[in-house]
């Protein structure tokens, strides 16, 4: 046990409280806002006590936004579904492509190997706008504009490098002798990959997949440029609340709560894997 003075403990408590307030208060406030009408939200000074309303959520779920200047159709639920579809498909494809590639980069030395790996990583350095303009031109030529396939493809720019580089580190951590031992025991290369390499890198694969999912989910600019309302995810869909008759803060807040919930739930569920996965080195056989 370390001994700490009372002052030190109080100081530490205050600091922790400050940090918690700094990070969690906005979330708490958004949560409150989602149950308020626009009038309540814009009242000065703001009030903690108000009459909660579910109108924001009902507007989102029914897709009818009633404003002073008339009724507006919003495709929020469609957007939410698009987010789920796009992110899931993008991560699934990135895993199918990225995990074997990560294994190859970890295990085999081949010509230009490091260069290819670095090029893939550099996709993460470049600002997306840099590639978007030429990409949108290509996509029009190829007929990929405003398609799920096109978006999922572009999302690989986000998901693939992440998965490749995180999982590669995991495969490098697996002693090659463990795989050799499995092969000497009579198993083929493929069965060794499935039976030994993947299970041993599983925490890393789970963590990388989860991070990639969150990054895809939060992406805004690709879908903004490359898709129309019909195919856009929630991040872009939230723009619909900036209407001619004003900004619908209540609906925006409710939309944020709804769209953050899946990733939050996923992160909480997979927290174990994330912590396990991002703190390396549980593999000393």
């Amino acid at each position, binding site marked *: 046990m370390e001994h700490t003075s009372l002052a030190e403990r109080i100081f530490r408590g205050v600091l922790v409280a400050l940090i918690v307030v700094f990070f969690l208060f906005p979330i708490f406030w958004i949560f409150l806002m989602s149950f308020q009408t626009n009038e309540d939200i814009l009242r000065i000074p703001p009030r903690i006590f108000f009459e909660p309303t579910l109108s924001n959520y009902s507007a989102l779920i029914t897709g009818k936004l009633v404003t002073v200047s008339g009724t507006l159709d919003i495709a929020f639920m469609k957007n939410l579904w698009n987010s789920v579809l796009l992110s899931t498909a993008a991560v699934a494809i990135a895993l199918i492509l990225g995990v074997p590639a990560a294994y190859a980069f970890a295990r085999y030395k081949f010509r230009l190997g490091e260069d290819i790996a670095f090029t893939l990583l550099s996709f993460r350095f470049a600002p997306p706008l840099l590639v978007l303009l030429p990409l949108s031109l290509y996509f029009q030529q190829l007929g990929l504009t405003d398609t799920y396939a096109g978006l999922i493809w572009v999302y690989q720019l986000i998901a693939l490098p992440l998965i490749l580089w995180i999982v590669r580190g995991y495969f490098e951590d697996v*002693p090659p002798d463990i795989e*050799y*031992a499995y092969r*000497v025991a009579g*198993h083929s290369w493929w069965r060794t990959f499935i039976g*030994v390499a993947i299970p*041993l890198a599983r925490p890393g694969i789970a963590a990388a997949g989860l991070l990639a999912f969150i990054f895809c989910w939060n992406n805004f600019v690709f879908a903004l440029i490359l898709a129309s309302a019909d195919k856009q995810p929630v991040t872009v869909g939230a723009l619909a609340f900036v209407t001619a008759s004003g900004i619908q803060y209540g609906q925006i807040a409710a939309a944020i709560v709804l769209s953050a919930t899946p990733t939050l739930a996923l992160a909480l569920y997979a927290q174990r894997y994330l912590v396990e996965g991002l703190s390396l080195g549980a593999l000393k056989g």
Partner: protein
Amino acid sequence: MAHLELQAVSKQFKTGKVLDGVSLEAERGEIICIFGPSGSGKTLLLRLIAGVEQPDEGVILLGGHDVTDNAPETRGVGMAFQNFALFPHMSAFDNVASALTARRTPPDVIRAKVEKVAALLKISHVLQHAPQELSNGQKQRTGLARALVADPKFLLLDDPLRNVDAKLRYEMRLELPALLKASGSTVLYVTQDYKEAMALGDRIAVLLDGVFAQIANPAEVYRQPATLSVARLFGEPTINLIPIEPLASPDALKIGVGGAWLSFPPSYAHAVGKSCVLGLRPESIVVETVNSRESFAVDVVAVTPLNEKTLLLLRTADGREILASEAGTDEAPRRRGPAYARFDPSAVLLFDAASGRRVPPQSA
């Protein structure tokens, strides 16, 4: 035809050549101990045979077939890795069974075989444990069990007793030969412990500087080592080496040891005038209090009683220090001080000083 054969196998890494044209032939069921200092390429040799590494040159034949380019899973070898290489995500049972699951063995046969080999290696009680819950000795025996369980035709064991505690190591050293013989496999057994090599091997292959310095049965390696380096590696304490130059004299050969001229067997006449190194095993030196024509004066500097034997550190008249060992007796403890030493001329070894090769006696 040899059951396992290496033909001029070479392997080079960036740091240099590790194996330089190694050749070896093993008969079916033979146990060959590959012995050498660490870093001599013993492990690499096993890895080449298992197919885990590829040789730069040379051919590897298993059961008469060239397998040099074949994948590891097709070679039918069992291997115990030096660093265990157990599968951390499987229980000890599944680790051992992995060699059988690949061969589509029915589950009840797998269970029976795993339990049998586990009982032999005394790991039955830990079969359900994960590898990280095992002690080093248990890990090593699990690895050994995994290599043995499928009755492979070729068994490659990479220092399997290294991490086993001393008591168990002695037990295993007694039990392993029978176990290996019963398996009927052709065994290559890598070790750094010369006693283990002596105890287990039908033959010992001494790997030095990338080639086999000698491949012979244990007694021959000990009594007729091919080179100085081999002689130095076997025996404890190590062999005494004294530079000499045999001289011809009217009645016999003479050598100068410790300031005295001693007669030397005439079968070494061909070594007259060459600069040589005399190899004297500590146990072939007799230390007495009386002088004789075959003795040279020594000073007993230190006495180390080890119960079963006593080690004596002797200093000769010309200042050289040599070690002698005597079988332990109940006699009064030996005193330090002046004494006389002699050796059995038939037990000496003579090496060429320049090449390090042994100079064998010639029958007259």
